[in-house]
């Protein structure tokens, strides 16, 4: 049986409450947590390279220096190639939002009309006001659509445009400011990664020094398991992202989309955000397909099919091979914790809940074992007694 499930209900309650409290705390210092999280990911990504360099006779300091310089060069190169695109995209953001908003609206309308065509009984369930205006925009559905009397659940084109215009005037400046605000924080990533790689083992030894003798071996094991849990989670996440990007990119390339591997990589990274990220990434690519190829009415549906296919591959093949193997959590617990993380700390909570839960789970189990092990507690009390005895040995003199 899984050790996690073997822990008692009180330990589990403690694990869940601690995870939620940490998520709330992390949300308040997100500017620090995000670079730390990225540095941890970079650390687990780069530590095999450092180990490889050390295996070839290089000192740790030199190996870490070279690997960190490579990381910095990569970040600078990616930043320089992406910055102009981001700048022009930001400049053009209001228009783009408007365009994609309209494309989205037309796509939804098309889907609705297609459904009416194939399932006429839906007219009475869903069909609202007259839809014939929509078929003229894309010429995709037949004109035999019968309007239904119910009010439309979907807003008109004008409403959508007004709403989009309102949102863009409200948030487009904030988006730019938010991006600018995150830059200095993200510049910390290579710096923190350097020290993680260089001093990680020494820092661990420094922490272990503070552990009383009686708890020493079990605490060492706790450190090992936490590190192993994090390493496997992040390496699994990166492997999953690479596999997703490869398969999605190949699929999008076959479908003829522009920049297929960039879109696939973006969608794969967005999928780091559980559930919402996958939906958002899929929606983004569908909108791009509908926007770039307005004449190909089936393309968005083919993209949706591709996403569903890759999702299924993810769930049944890739995820058990990568992340699933690392956390060994019950699926119900995973879903509940993701919902709880989102409820207590929003988007940050969704993103951080799994790694935080993984660490707290291991720590909770081991601490639970330590504080309920009467023999270890007795040994600790015995060691304390010996120390006190030693400290007062020469305080009392005879006579």
């Amino acid at each position, binding site marked *: 049986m899984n050790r996690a499930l073997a822990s008692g209900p009180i330990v589990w309650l403690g694990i869940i409450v601690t995870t939620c409290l940490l998520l709330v705390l992390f949300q308040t210092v997100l500017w620090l947590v995000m670079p730390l999280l990225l540095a941890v990911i970079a650390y687990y990504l780069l530590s095999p390279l450092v180990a490889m360099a*050390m295996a070839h006779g290089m000192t740790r300091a030199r190996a870490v220096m070279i690997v960190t310089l490579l990381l910095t060069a990569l970040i600078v190169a990616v930043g320089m190639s992406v910055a102009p695109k981001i700048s022009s995209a930001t400049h053009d953001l209001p228009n783009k939002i408007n365009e994609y908003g309209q494309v989205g609206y037309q796509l939804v309308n098309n889907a609705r009309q297609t459904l009416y065509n194939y399932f006429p009984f839906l007219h009475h369930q869903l069909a609202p006001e007259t839809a014939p205006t929509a078929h003229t925009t894309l010429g995709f559905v037949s004109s035999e659509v019968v309007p239904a009397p119910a009010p439309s659940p979907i807003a008109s084109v004008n409403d959508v445009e007004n709403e989009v215009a309102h949102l863009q005037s409200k948030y487009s400046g904030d988006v730019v400011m938010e991006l600018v605000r995150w830059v200095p924080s993200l510049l910390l990533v290579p710096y923190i990664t350097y*020290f993680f790689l260089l001093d990680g083992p020494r820092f661990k030894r420094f922490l272990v020094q503070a552990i009383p*003798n009686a708890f020493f071996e079990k605490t060492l094991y706790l450190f090992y398991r936490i590190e192993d849990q994090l390493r496997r989670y992040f390496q699994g996440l990166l492997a999953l992202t690479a596999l997703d990007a490869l398969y999605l990119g190949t699929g999008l390339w076959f479908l003829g989309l522009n920049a297929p591997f960039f879109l696939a990589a973006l969608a794969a990274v967005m999928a780091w955000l559980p559930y919402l990220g996958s939906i958002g990434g899929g929606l983004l690519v569908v909108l791009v397909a509908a926007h770039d190829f307005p004449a190909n009415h089936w393309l968005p549906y083919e993209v949706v099919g591709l996403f569903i296919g890759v999702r299924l591959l993810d769930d049944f093949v890739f995820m058990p091979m990568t992340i699933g193997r690392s956390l060994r959590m019950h699926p119900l617990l995973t879903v509940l914790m993701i919902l709880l993380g989102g409820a207590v700390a929003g988007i940050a909570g969704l993103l951080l809940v799994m790694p935080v839960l993984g660490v707290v789970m291991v720590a909770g189990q081991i601490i639970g074992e330590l504080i309920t092990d009467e023999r270890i507690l007795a040994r600790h009390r015995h060691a304390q007694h010996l120390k006190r005895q030693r400290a007062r040995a020469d305080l009392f003199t005879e006579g």
Partner: protein
Amino acid sequence: MLFGLTPTPMPARNPRLQLLKNVVLFKDLSMRDLAMVDSLMHERHYLAEEVIFDEGEEGQGLFLVLSGRVKITLPADANAVLVELGPGAFFGEVALLDQSVRTAQARAIEDSQIVALFRADFYTLLETHSAIASRISFQLARALAARLRRAVSDTGHRHQSV
């Protein structure tokens, strides 16, 4: 220095390395190799009569005596001392090889300075510095073989006396 850590002294000037050099497991290692192994070790100080580990605990690594004395006793009789170990000796070595439980209790006889090599760190050493790790493994295998021979010989003597 970051986290209050002091820089590692040069191998020749590090007194702990001089003590480690006397451990049979490390006799094939150069001072430079020894410094590498030393960076993975955790130093502990035990008072006389303090328990180092108990029988039945899940072992996580090997312990080396740098100074002081340690006794190994069986759980059935704490007074029946299996062996007393002094500086340069090591114990709990089976835990370095697998995740088994301790079969005896280790307790400091006098104030002792002990270093521990954790199994996970030894596995890391196998990956990053396989030449060093294989030399340690070879010495460990020789020590285990010597103990096995001694145990077989003791059993033979007991049979003869019966």
